[in-house]
C-alpha cells in the first residue's frame, strides 16, 4: 500500500529534479559562453562540468559521469585557469607596445569582424544541420545492440559492458581517441618551449596538502584501472586522475629531472598506444584478425592495454598542462 502511494511522488520528485538540472545546465552553458569576463566564464564552466556529471548520473551512465567529473569539472578548470593567467601576463607585457597601434588595429578589426562573422555563421549552420541530421537518423531501438553486447560479454574477457565495448568490440574507437590525445600534445609542443617559470615556493599548507593528496590520487587512479573490468572505471578515468596528480606536482613547482625529459618521457607518452597497436598486430601473426582478442586471454590483454593506456593518458594530460615542449629549457 505504501509503495503504491510513494511511487507517483517519487516520479514527480525525479521530474522536478531533472527539469531543474536541465534548465540550470542550459543557463550555465549560455552564461559561460556569453560572459565578457573570462575568469567568470571559467568558473561558470567548472560549475557546468559539475552539473553535466550529475546529468550523466541521472542518465544512468556512471562511466561517462566519472570521465566528466575528472576531466570536465577538474582538469579542464585547472588548465583554463593556468591559460588565463598566462594570457594576462602576456597581455601586460604587450600592452605598452600595442597602445601605439591601437587605432589601426581597431579599424582593421571591424572589417575583419563582419567577414569572419559571416563565415563563422555558415560553418556553424553546416555543423548544426549535420548534428540535426545525425539525431534525426539515429536508430530508435538500441535494444538490439544491448542484446548483442550482453550476449557476447562472456567472450570479451571483462564483465563491465562499457569496457567490453571500448576495449574489445570497438577497440578502434579507443585507439583513435588515444591518438587524438597524443596529437593534441604534439600540437601544443609545436608552439615551442615553455616560458620561464616565475614561481614562489609553496607555503606549508600547500606543501602538506600535496604530500597527502598526490599518493591518494595515484592510488585512486590504480583503483579505477583495476575496477574498470567489472564496474564503471577504466583507462580514461584512471588516466585523468593520474593526470591530476601530475598537474598537482607541476603546480607546487616540481619539474621532471632533465635526464628524463628527452627520450624516457616520449617513450612513456607513446607507451599506451604502442602496447595497443602491437597487441593488435601480434594477433595478426597468430592467425587472428586485427584486434581480435582470443577469449582465453582477452581479460589479461585488456588489463595490460589499459594499464599502459592509463600511464600514457595520465602523463599526456600532465604534459599538456605544461603548455610547451619541456626540452626547450635546456637551450636557454
Amino acid at each position, binding site marked *: 500500500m505504501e509503495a503504491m502511494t510513494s511511487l507517483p511522488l517519487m516520479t514527480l520528485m525525479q521530474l522536478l529534479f531533472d527539469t531543474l538540472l536541465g534548465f540550470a545546465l542550459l543557463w550555465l552553458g549560455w552564461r559561460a559562453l556569453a560572459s565578457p569576463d573570462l575568469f567568470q566564464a571559467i568558473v561558470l564552466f567548472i560549475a557546468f562540468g559539475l552539473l553535466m556529471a550529475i546529468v550523466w548520473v541521472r542518465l544512468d551512465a556512471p562511466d561517462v559521469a566519472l570521465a566528466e567529473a575528472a576531466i570536465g569539472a*577538474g582538469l579542464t578548470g585547472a588548465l583554463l585557469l593556468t591559460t588565463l593567467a598566462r594570457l594576462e601576463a602576456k597581455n601586460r607585457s604587450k600592452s605598452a607596445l600595442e597602445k601605439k597601434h591601437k587605432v589601426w588595429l581597431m579599424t582593421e578589426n571591424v572589417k575583419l569582424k563582419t567577414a569572419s562573422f559571416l563565415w563563422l555563421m555558415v560553418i556553424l549552420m553546416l555543423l548544426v544541420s549535420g548534428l540535426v541530421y545525425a539525431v534525426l537518423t539515429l536508430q530508435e531501438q538500441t535494444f538490439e545492440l544491448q542484446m548483442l553486447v550482453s550476449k557476447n560479454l562472456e567472450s570479451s574477457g571483462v564483465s563491465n559492458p562499457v569496457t567490453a565495448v571500448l576495449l574489445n568490440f570497438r577497440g578502434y574507437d579507443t585507439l583513435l581517441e588515444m591518438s587524438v590525445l597524443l596529437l593534441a600534445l604534439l600540437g601544443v609542443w609545436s608552439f615551442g618551449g615553455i616560458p620561464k617559470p616565475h614561481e614562489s615556493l609553496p607555503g606549508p599548507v600547500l606543501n602538506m596538502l600535496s604530500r597527502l593528496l598526490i599518493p591518494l590520487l595515484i592510488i585512486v587512479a590504480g583503483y579505477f584501472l583495476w575496477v574498470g573490468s567489472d564496474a564503471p572505471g577504466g583507462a580514461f578515468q584512471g588516466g585523468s586522475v593520474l593526470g591530476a596528480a601530475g598537474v*598537482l606536482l607541476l603546480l607546487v613547482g616540481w619539474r621532471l629531472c632533465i635526464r628524463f625529459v628527452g627520450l624516457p618521457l616520449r617513450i612513456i607518452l607513446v607507451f599506451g598506444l604502442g602496447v595497443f597497436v602491437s597487441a593488435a598486430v601480434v594477433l595478426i601473426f597468430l592467425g587472428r584478425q586485427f584486434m581480435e582478442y582470443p577469449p582465453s586471454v582477452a581479460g589479461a590483454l585488456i588489463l595490460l592495454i589499459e594499464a599502459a593506456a592509463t600511464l600514457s593518458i595520465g602523463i599526456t594530460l600532465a604534459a599538456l598542462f605544461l603548455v610547451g615542449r619541456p626540452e626547450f629549457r635546456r637551450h636557454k
Partner: protein
Amino acid sequence: MEIFYLSIAFFLLLTLLAGLWRVLRGPTAADRMLAAQLFGTTAVACVLLLAQAFERPVLRDVALIFALLAAVTAIAFVRRAWASGEHSDAAK
C-alpha cells in the same frame, strides 16, 4: 526513504543555483572561485544522495573524483590566477 534522499538532493541543487549569484556578482575573483569550490562540495553531497536514493553504490566513485579534483582546481587558482595578481574587479 528514497524520496527523502531525492528531496534533499533537490534542495542541494537549489542551493547550488543560489550560489551562482555569487559567481555572477563577484566582486573579486576569489569570491567566484570559492563559490565554485562550494559547488564542488554540494555536488559531492548531491551525488552521494543520488547513490543512496537509487541504490547505485557505483555513484560514490563519482563523488570521490569530485572531492579529489576540486582541490586541484583550487590550487591552480591560488598558484596561477591569483598569484599572477591584479585579478579583481575592484582594480578595474
